[in-house]
């Protein structure tokens, strides 16, 4: 792997890691405040747990860097594997730190929050790519206009 690719890989992993950590804190705080109607208190262990999940998410996102040339099916399969892997890590961490009780409703709340955060991160990533594509499209249109103007002058 070239140094540029390593840098890009690290940057992608760091971006995903920070987004996941930030969103866990935001979603959990909002959930506690407006749904559970109570204030959030973060213990050091909870913070370590959130950091752990963020780091695993970041490392897992590195999988996609190796799948850039892969077919659509492979990309979809890797997304599903990534989703399940994160889910497993979350459940393991939550059980260890007692973030939910072993009962159906508590598990469903945890799963809903996980899906919400996963969807939010995916949408954020897509929006960033969309903005990048928009800038590139604008440049492509500018280039076409400039070529057309040059051709008109030459004619």
């Amino acid at each position, binding site marked *: 792997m070239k140094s540029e*690719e390593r840098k*890009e890989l690290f940057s*992608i992993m760091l971006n995903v890691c920070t987004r996941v950590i930030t969103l866990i804190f935001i979603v959990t705080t909002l959930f506690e405040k407006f749904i559970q109607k109570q204030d959030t208190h973060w213990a050091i262990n909870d913070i370590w747990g959130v950091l752990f999940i963020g780091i695993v998410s970041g490392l897992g996102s590195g999988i*996609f*860097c190796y*799948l*850039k*040339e*892969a077919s*659509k099916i492979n*990309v*979809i399969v*890797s*997304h599903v594997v990534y989703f399940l892997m994160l889910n497993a890590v979350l459940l393991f961490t939550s059980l260890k730190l007692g973030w939910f009780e072993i009962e159906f409703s508590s598990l469903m709340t945890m799963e809903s929050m996980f899906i919400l955060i996963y969807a939010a991160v995916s949408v954020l*990533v*897509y929006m960033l*790519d*969309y903005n*990048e*594509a928009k*800038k*590139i*499209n604008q*440049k*492509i249109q500018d*280039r*076409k206009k400039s*070529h057309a103007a040059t051709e008109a002058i030459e004619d």
Partner: protein
Amino acid sequence: MKVTILEKKAGEEDELIIKCDSLDESLTKLINQFKGGKGKMNFYKDGRIVFVDAEEVLYFESVDDTVFAYTKDSVYETKSKLYQLENELPASIFFRASKGVIVNLDKIDSLMPVFGGRFEAVLQNGYKVVISRNYLNTLKELLGL
């Protein structure tokens, strides 16, 4: 290699004839250089050599060690490898979009993000080509972004 130079008759056009069993890499390069001044590339279609303007090519794609050139309405085969084409083609127009594809920037209509953090370029004839994130910076540099 035997080189024979024949005197042409008055009014006859200059002609270069290559006699060989098959066109190898060096001969292909030689023809490309010869034709280069006129901006034409030699491709193959149905066993015949066809000369096509490089600018007409939408993209080159390598499939199982064979490189194909796609124009608006035809697909040609070329003996050159992608890395050779990358060196021969004008870098201000053609760029590597992924491991197996070189795209003509002037033939891109628009770009869209697709599932898995990749981008898809929609070409003028509606063809879609994946641009991997590794090569996105090359495109951005070409466009001055």
